């Protein structure tokens, strides 16, 4: 369906507004279902200071489907579990 067809079906005259609404709708669809999946890969670092375990979530992410780690011993990505709460820090220092 083209943008023009959608504008005719809805009676909307403003093209920019129509495009904005369409993006909003796709956003809502992606938030509720899994219409299109993207994959983001990042290097894991050998932690040397207290924020080296912090990784940035993709900026265009709407919802996470799963998180996995590369098992280099058999070259497969394996899904990992989410912690429901942040662990209590015994030591923030990396060399206790």
């Amino acid at each position, binding site marked *: *369906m083209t*943008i023009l067809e*959608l504008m005719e079906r809805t009676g909307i005259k403003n093209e920019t507004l*129509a495009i904005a609404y369409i993006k909003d709708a796709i956003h809502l669809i992606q938030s*509720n279902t899994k219409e299109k999946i993207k994959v983001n890969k990042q290097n894991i670092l050998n932690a040397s200071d207290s924020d080296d375990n912090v990784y940035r979530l993709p900026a*265009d992410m709407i919802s996470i489907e799963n998180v996995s780690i590369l*098992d280099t011993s058999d070259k497969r990505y394996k899904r*990992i579990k989410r912690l429901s709460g942040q662990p209590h820090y015994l030591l923030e220092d*990396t060399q206790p």
Partner: protein
Amino acid sequence: MSSYVDKEYFYYLRGRELLLYKLLGSRNRTRITQSGILQSYHNELMYPDENITDGLRIEYTALNDPFISESFESSTGYGTGTIFTFTASNRYIGTGINNWWKDHGFSEGDKIRIQGSTSNDGEHIISGGVGTSISGSASTIDLTSASTLVDESAGANITITQVPEPDTITSPNTTSHINLNKMLCLAVVDYVKAMIHEERGEIDKKEYYMKEFFSKLADNESNKRLVSSAFPISPFAVR
């Protein structure tokens, strides 16, 4: 070397960040040499203690390529076989069979995804037929200059699929197609109607169209799950 990562790694979500932890006392390290020790209930956690290239993989939904240049339903080009040869110097993909590209639903300007190739997997855009057009009887195509190929002989079992070509997000126009199937496009129509009624303050109509929107979303999902189940019948049931 990482192993048993599914049992040893955990993540925690903090706002726009993902915090990665590794189980202390795993088979890879002993407690004496640990660094960054953390405590979670009875299990101690620490920061990752190894470098893994592309080690963290996040699958997610995103607002990517909302508009495409060709309708989703007409992107049906598909072909597979062991006939494909790749020529790096002029970005040719040959099949040796006249009309192969036309017969399999491809045309000039299509975006294609190559899978199964030894070194040419990826997405490319078809520039045109070589010697003659695709709608003529071309057996070989060339790709746009944006593509880079590696020489490869026929033999690998390769699949070539047409994928929707995105319109630039910054400049979609009225002729751009929405990157959704027909059912979800109709859901988008309901969403836009709902927003129009919301602007007018007609909340009851807005609610009606939002209900229609979610109904079509649900239909679209359930349409993929129309599966039948077969139950084995016990031989004692035979009469």
